[in-house]
């Protein structure tokens, strides 16, 4: 077995992350950057931005609970140290996305209320499926659910949001760049650690494959809820037109997101994430199971 964790160290994490791409940032972005005035002044856009950001906080709270919970389930010292840094990464993500809610005008005392008001029910179920494995100290299933399924989804969602925000909202685009860099380490750990562990515990395959199928269904249902019948559609269309006038594109995976209807964006996102799951799982010797479509 190639011990990939031998090249990993907390020192390298310090040099890459806090002393690297996060240096001179405040809550993940340069201190002088602010949310665009339009997002703050247009009530429909503001509410939809709050709704979208709430899902990020919910997802990251799940990742924080999972990565910290997995530390004591990890069979080796290297994995424990890696998960300790991942725990800090996830806690930071919870903090920066919560801070974004405050920047959008949510009062600190209202945070929990806003989270429960806007949290998507399917995303909550997605988290519950994963945390059940973590509670049972099931390391193999926990890492697949957390570092391959949840992080794989987050990686694509953040990249897509980054493409959409890059020209219009540099503050949020910068916040996302740091999380994308973090996700690279997290998916790398998931693939490499499980790639070797699944060879040791082939009897875990069927259970882990079902976990991916169940989590994928809740993920697709979350995307469906968020993209279909979105009441801010006319506002987003106006924003898209403004971006086009200013020559700002949002290209992602070979498509121009600003030219697309929300349902079509949902389709591209879902297909991209599922394709990534399939490729990743097959690389480590697990069979991808197609989830039912909501």
């Amino acid at each position, binding site marked *: *077995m*190639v011990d*990939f*964790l031998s*090249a*990993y160290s907390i020192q*390298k994490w310090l*040099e*890459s992350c806090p*002393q*690297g*791409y996060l240096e001179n940032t405040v809550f993940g972005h340069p201190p002088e950057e602010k949310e665009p005035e339009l997002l703050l002044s247009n009530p429909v856009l503001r509410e939809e931005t709050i709704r979208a950001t709430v899902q990020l906080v919910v997802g990251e709270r799940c990742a924080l609970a999972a990565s910290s919970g997995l530390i004591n389930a990890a069979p080796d010292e290297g994995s424990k140290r890696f998960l300790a840094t991942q725990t800090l990464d996830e806690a930071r993500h919870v903090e920066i996305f919560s801070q974004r809610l405050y920047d959008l005008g949510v009062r600190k005392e209202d945070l929990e209320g806003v989270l429960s008001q806007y949290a998507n029910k399917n995303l909550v179920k997605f988290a519950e499926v994963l945390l059940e494995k973590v509670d049972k100290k099931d390391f193999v299933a926990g890492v697949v659910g957390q570092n391959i399924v949840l992080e794989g989804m987050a990686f694509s969602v953040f990249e897509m949001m980054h493409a959409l925000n890059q020209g219009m909202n540099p503050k949020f685009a910068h916040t996302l760049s740091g999380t994308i*860099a973090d996700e*690279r*380490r997290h*998916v*790398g*750990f998931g*693939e*490499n650690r499980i*790639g*070797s562990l699944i*060879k040791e515990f082939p009897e875990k395959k069927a259970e882990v494959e079902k976990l991916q199928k169940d989590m994928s269904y809740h993920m697709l249902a979350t995307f469906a809820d968020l993209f279909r019948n979105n009441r801010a559609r006319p506002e987003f269309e106006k924003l898209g037109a403004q971006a086009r006038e200013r020559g700002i594109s949002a*290209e*992602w*995976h*070979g498509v121009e997101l600003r030219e697309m209807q929300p349902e079509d964006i949902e389709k591209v996102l879902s297909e991209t994430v599922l394709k990534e799951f399939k*490729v*990743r799982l097959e*690389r*480590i010797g697990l069979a991808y199971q197609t989830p039912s479509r909501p």
Partner: protein
Amino acid sequence: MRDPLEGGNTAPAEGGDGRRYVLEDTGFDEVPKKYRRFYRKWKGPGDTLAPNEVLCPVCKVVIRSTRALRDGDRVYCMPCMSRLVVFTNDAGALEARVAY
């Protein structure tokens, strides 16, 4: 300073141009400063890779070496900590697979 290219396979690539590549820092800031020039962001499906470059299949970062890469080379992707082996795919292009 360590090139992501690992192991003793340091002779110029067979069939390649055998030249050394001078690597500029492209602003990739996800690894410690002294390693930054060995990686760059991938620009998506339209991005053309140079003979000394290969895409990490795990995290989609381009890994760069100071010499042309060839079949069997082992490279390290520091952003995601993956150890990779370079191979020639059916289309004749260089790809990397993960060594677990």
